[in-house]
């Protein structure tokens, strides 16, 4: 980490590597760039849009994993105690397989000649394959699949501790299902929601393999941009500065979460 920080303040060498002299160039290039065609200095919109895409996709992924993960966790924690462990065990099974293999498996399912398209065409619902692979949707799908257990497990931990008498009390007081969910269950399992969201959001924002394989490489994500600067771009200081920026982004996200939790917690006490 310190080495990366140090590198970000050095000058770049012609063929990758660094020269040991102080320079702001790395940081300068993260946010600003000299326009190659008219030499004006502008905001580096290429980097900015890559940052925004990464944040947007990670955010989307977090919400999707929650939408899928919450009912799953709720289902598991309401099973009889004996069978719960089996369900949990099943949630962790995908972790046994290498990430790359899982990603290739998804590709096989959503390819143009893949399972989904073949079934849809055979059933006569569509006559041209739908392009699912190599879209932002495919990236999100891959990330959701990969990080879903990270959402389910902390959620399960909180829901399991939930006192279901409170839920019954809610119904007794004529609360409908939505009100019970929103006013009773969500506040009580909040620590789980927050932990799960952090666990999903942080790795998604720096994800490398999944966006590259499922996104088709046409649109970079942060992880891929950093790799490019260390490789073909031959600009280690810029790569280092971008890594630190990613680190700071993650820190901000964390602090933000911590702030919400402590504040809301205080109100309720």
């Amino acid at each position, binding site marked *: 980490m310190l080495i990366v920080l140090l590198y970000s303040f050095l000058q770049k060498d012609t063929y*990758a590597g660094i020269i040991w002299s102080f320079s702001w160039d790395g940081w300068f290039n993260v946010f600003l760039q000299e326009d*190659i065609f008219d030499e004006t200095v502008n905001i580096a*919109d*290429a980097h900015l849009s*890559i940052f925004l895409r990464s944040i947007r996709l990670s955010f989307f992924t977090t919400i999707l994993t929650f939408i899928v993960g919450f009912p799953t966790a709720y289902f598991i924690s309401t099973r009889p105690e004996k069978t719960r462990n089996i369900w949990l065990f099943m949630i962790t099974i995908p972790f046994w397989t290498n990430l790359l293999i899982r990603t290739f498996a998804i590709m096989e399912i959503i390819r143009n000649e893949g399972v989904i398209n073949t079934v849809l065409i055979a059933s006569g619902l569509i006559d041209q394959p739908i392009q699912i692979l190599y879209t932002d949707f495919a990236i999100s799908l891959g990330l959701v699949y990969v990080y879903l257990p990270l959402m389910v497990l902390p959620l399960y931990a909180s829901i399991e501790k939930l006192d279901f008498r409170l839920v019954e009390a809610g119904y007794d007081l004529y609360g409908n299902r939505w009100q019970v969910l929103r006013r009773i269950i969500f506040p009580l399992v909040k620590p789980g929601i927050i932990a799960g969201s952090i666990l999903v959001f942080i790795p998604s924002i720096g994800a490398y393999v999944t966006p590259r394989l499922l996104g*088709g*490489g046409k649109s970079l994500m942060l992880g891929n*941009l950093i790799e490019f600067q260390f490789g073909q771009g031959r600009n280690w200081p810029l790569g280092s500065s971008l890594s630190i920026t990613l680190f700071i982004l993650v820190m901000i996200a964390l602090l933000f979460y911590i702030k919400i939790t402590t504040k809301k917690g205080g109100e309720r006490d």
Partner: protein
Amino acid sequence: MKRLIISAVVGLGLVVGSGAAMADGELNIFNWGNYTNPKLIEKFEQAYNVEVTLSDYDSNDSMLAKIKAGGHGYDISVPSDYMVSVMISEGLLLKTAPNKMANFKNIEPGFADPYFDEGRQYSVPWQWGTTALSVNTETYKGDIDTWSVIFNPPEELRGKINVVPEMNDVINAALRYKGFPLCNGNKAQLKEVNDMMQNAKQYWLTMEYGNVERLANGDIHAAVNWNGASMRARLANSAIKYGYPKEGLGTWMDNVVVLADAKNVENAKLFQNFIMDPENAAMISDFAKYANGIAGSMKYLPEEFASAPEIVPPSYYKAEFTQVCPNEVNEMYTKIWTNLLK
């Protein structure tokens, strides 16, 4: 279950470990992925009683970054032409003097004294080939000997094209298509190239490596591609043809070099000499389907290979190695490229 797996892995490690103890030495080769014939490695291991470990990379630049970072433990790597000269100038290579080795006489005269390693003091040919394009000729029946297939694609190919994420190859192709000089710092011309690529990108499906399977199974119908990869795709799907753009195309050669911080120098030198033997060079080509630059190796290869359209270029083809561009130009290329991929 988990314990079972662990013990299996440990057991396997013991078997491999005891094998290493018997060999005279080790050799760590760092080569491009899916590029090394396992039979060649086996033959070398048996001939010299050496344990070979193979690791792979997907681009010259990621290889360079790893080597420069140090602590890699590799003895040999296989950089392309321009990267050989970069690595020589950076002092990353060991002067093994292949020109004094026994099998040096087998190198084809055209490759014995290349610009990137004059007199071959560091490097030995591995394979060479061209960078052009592959097209599925069932989908598109028009002229494929032009870069317009990629930069101004015909209706039939739109949305079905893969462009490999090799910054230099792609920008050079675009410069050639426009008829501009390579390693070009001219801003007006670069702007034209930039605008053309920005516009063409909407017709590209992906920018990824791994053309062979995807061309063969119809995920993509055209691609910026290397000749050997195109041949492998054709062997799986006869509709795939390799186009030689009339506007010009790049020629490259990958070369076996020994790294300055190699630990198994003698074995590495043995390997350099070993692959200059025509029969061994033929094994390299047999696997990856590129020519190897060693005279007399073709007779160990099937006739279909020696006369393949991907190996024998048309008469207007002119070999033109990729050059190292000056730093300012590379910086401009990098900006155009990040802007393209944003």
